[in-house]
């Protein structure tokens, strides 16, 4: 039990990761798939940022009396990853809008069912 509490952050990461992947694979609605994809990517942000935090650590600015600093690098990396995630989501949604215009539906099985007609 103590272990489970100590690894709280990791549990959240894993749960989000699995939920996200499950939604991507199991849902047929193209928008819901993108939501799942976003949740999946968010879990990775946590995976990186979590270990960067050091208990009692301060922001990494050299000052007297502080010797323990948190690692700023994961935050920088994840800032980049968030931008990438937003770009992916925007492109994905734009594609869904176009698919809706072309097929009149955003349900994957219906879209694939109408593929042969074109």
């Amino acid at each position, binding site marked *: 039990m103590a272990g489970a509490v100590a690894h709280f952050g990791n549990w959240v990461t894993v749960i989000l990761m699995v939920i996200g992947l499950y939604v991507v694979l199991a849902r047929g609605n193209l928008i819901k798939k993108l939501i799942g994809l976003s949740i999946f990517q968010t879990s990775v942000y946590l995976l990186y940022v979590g270990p960067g935090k050091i208990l009692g650590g301060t922001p990494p600015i050299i000052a007297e009396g502080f010797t323990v600093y948190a690692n700023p690098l994961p935050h920088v990396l994840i*800032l980049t990853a968030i*931008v990438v995630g937003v770009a992916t989501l*925007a492109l994905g*949604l*734009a594609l869904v*809008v176009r698919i809706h*215009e072309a097929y009149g539906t955003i349900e994957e099985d219906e879209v694939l069912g109408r593929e042969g007609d074109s």
Partner: protein
Amino acid sequence: MMHRETIPRVVTKLLFPFILLFALYVQFHGELGAGGGFQAGVIAAAAVILYGIIFGLSAAHRIAPPWLVEMLVPLGVLIYAGVGVVGLLLGGNYLDYFVLDPDPVHGQERGIFWVEIGVLVTVSSTMIAIYYAFAGRGR
């Protein structure tokens, strides 16, 4: 578009300059504390998007014409990457800010300043472009 609601229309007009001012504050405060081009860009874009929601898409097109927005997206990237090339021309490596000023520390500051300007331009115009693209669909 909201034709009859007086309060949102008046409030939007009042808030508009302050939102832009706040964006600039966040942009230039980024050197000292929380802030920077990403946040400032989104705030600045929010001003235009709010204007578009209240007064209609064509009104927003008047204050931020689509062709200008489409030009600003690549321009910001050019500014960012261009700073790197300036470092290259001044004898350093690519993205070398140390050589931008005789004092290397000041050079870093100068490099980041221009990079953040590039980020501001691209992020704000991208946000507006996305809004235009989705709002203008189906017309």
